[in-house]
């Protein structure tokens, strides 16, 4: 990673606040993700990680604060506009088109653009070039031989892999990964970790993950969210040493 790429701030969250009634789910959060960086977001259940992610991707609006994507203020933009500006994500609960086969899901991701709505005549399933590109993504996540299986018939772990392929295929600049390893076996989890490590320079990644092995293997920086507040941001080593983090989340056993 050259230093120039590291300089570019892809995601800049400033003073973000969100309350649901009396519950302050996001309290004045500042967060940055640079190009080529994996920034892990950890925290106990109910800390507000998913709420933060959904605000960044635009599904819910913050009460206050700003979100900048590649230098542009996107706070007022709808989710699909942010997606078009290079924000990709995977969901904690897999969001796939269950009737479509694995390869059709990836094709969909590859084919969607602002002008797709006018493409009312060409059949994407007959586009050999598109199929080849989609197949390449399936190979990368380890689903090469499952291309023609409907997503509905896939096992949980396979769907997680497919979810990642769908998110990656668009070549977003910034990726929000909401617990990509959740429900995966150790072998699949290790494969995902290798995959993400191999592609780290192509994206900026905000990674929400409970699997601490994966976090420490991948993250350049780690932020800790507790009750809607970011209590710490630093390197993996720093986070291991931080007393408040240890008591709030890691527990002594994890170190």
């Amino acid at each position, binding site marked *: 990673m050259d230093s120039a790429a590291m300089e570019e701030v892809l995601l800049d969250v400033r003073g973000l606040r969100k309350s649901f009634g009396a519950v302050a789910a996001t309290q004045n959060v500042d967060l940055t993700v640079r190009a080529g960086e994996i920034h892990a977001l950890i925290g106990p259940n109910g800390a507000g990680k998913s709420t933060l992610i959904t605000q960044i*991707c635009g*599904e819910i609006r913050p009460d206050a604060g700003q979100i900048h994507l590649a230098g542009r203020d996107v706070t007022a933009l*709808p*989710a*699909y506009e942010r*997606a*078009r500006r290079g*924000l*990709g*994500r995977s*969901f904690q609960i897999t*969001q*796939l*088109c*269950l*009737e*479509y*086969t694995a*390869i*059709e899901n990836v*094709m*969909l*991701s590859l*084919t*969607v*653009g*602002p002008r*797709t*709505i*006018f*493409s*009312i*005549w*060409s*059949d*994407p*399933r*007959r586009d*050999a070039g598109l*199929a080849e590109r989609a*197949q390449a993504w399936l190979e990368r996540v380890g689903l090469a031989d499952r*291309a*023609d299986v*409907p997503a509905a018939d896939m096992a949980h772990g396979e769907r997680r892999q497919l979810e990642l392929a*769908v998110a990656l295929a*668009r070549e977003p600049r910034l990726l929000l990964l909401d617990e990509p390893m959740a429900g995966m076996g150790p072998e699949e989890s290790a494969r995902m970790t290798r995959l993400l490590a191999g592609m780290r320079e192509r994206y900026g990644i905000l990674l929400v993950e409970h699997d601490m092995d994966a976090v420490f293997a991948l993250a350049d920086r780690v932020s800790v969210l507790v009750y809607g507040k970011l209590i710490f941001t630093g390197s993996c080593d720093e986070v291991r040493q931080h007393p408040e983090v240890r008591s709030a989340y890691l527990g002594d056993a994890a170190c």
Partner: protein
Amino acid sequence: MNRMSGIAVPGRGAAGLFTQWNRRAVFGWVGLLLLAHATDTPYLINAMARFVIYGLAAVSLDLVLGYGALISFGHAMFFGLGGYVVAIITFHAVEAGPLFGWAGSTQALVVWPIALACCALLGWGVGYLALRTSGVQFIMITLAFGQMVYFILVSLQVYGGDDGLMMSQRSQLPGIDLADPVSFYYVSLAVLALWTLFCVKLVNSRYGMVLQALRQSERRAVNLGVAPMSYRLSAFVISAVGTGMAGILWANYAELVTPDMAAWTKSGELMAIVILGGVGTLLGPIAGAAVFLGLEQALSAWTEHWMFIMGPILVLVVLAGKHGLFGYWLGKRHG
């Protein structure tokens, strides 16, 4: 390359059903053409024309119902509007004076596009408002708009109010005599065939792939950069135009338009036809129209309480599988 052939013929999903169905559909079309040709009975020709017109409306409704998961309970408003626009313009051209300074016309190539444009405009307006909601609210709003159109038509005393408006003559097409029942049937059949072909291409296109993705997982589609409103609204407008075309044909077939064409019972009838034939199959609703109208005809000849029998049949089909008659035809593997 085994893999590539697997992609060219997708095995599953509503879109994949067509490839297996194409051959049977072609046989079906040819059969229909011959049936009309072989018979000289006006009764049968008229029954076939009715079936084709309802089939056209049902295919259009299936586009939003089956592929967009937009449960429009007011689609008869487009059926009614399409018919009324044609009847009103004909009325002004033949009997009453000019309309807004225009003498009116009886030329199909002039009047029909105007009627379709009106339907597109109404579809855009209703869709724009109704698509801000979803689920039950969407059903209720489309129902409300449908009823609005119905009561507007009832209140048009100049155009017959409750009794409707007679069309003194059918629209005129250059080279084709629409007054002849057989020619009219062929024209209707051609419209149905072309429209169905267009809809099949549409749902299998990139546009259709995204439209169906919105139905399966809106969150995923939005996070791929899809603006849901534009896809759903365009589908709604296209569907409105197709249903309006059915209304235009109906006005010409019956030579009479009545407010009933836009009533909620008509919307329900269209929905029943789509469900009977198979939601999200496009070709199924055509079969649904044939069976529905056939049963209606046969049962109502037998008893005036024919709905007593029709109702349970609909329930049975719905319980048997979500693909309706179409799914039954294809066998269990798609159920």
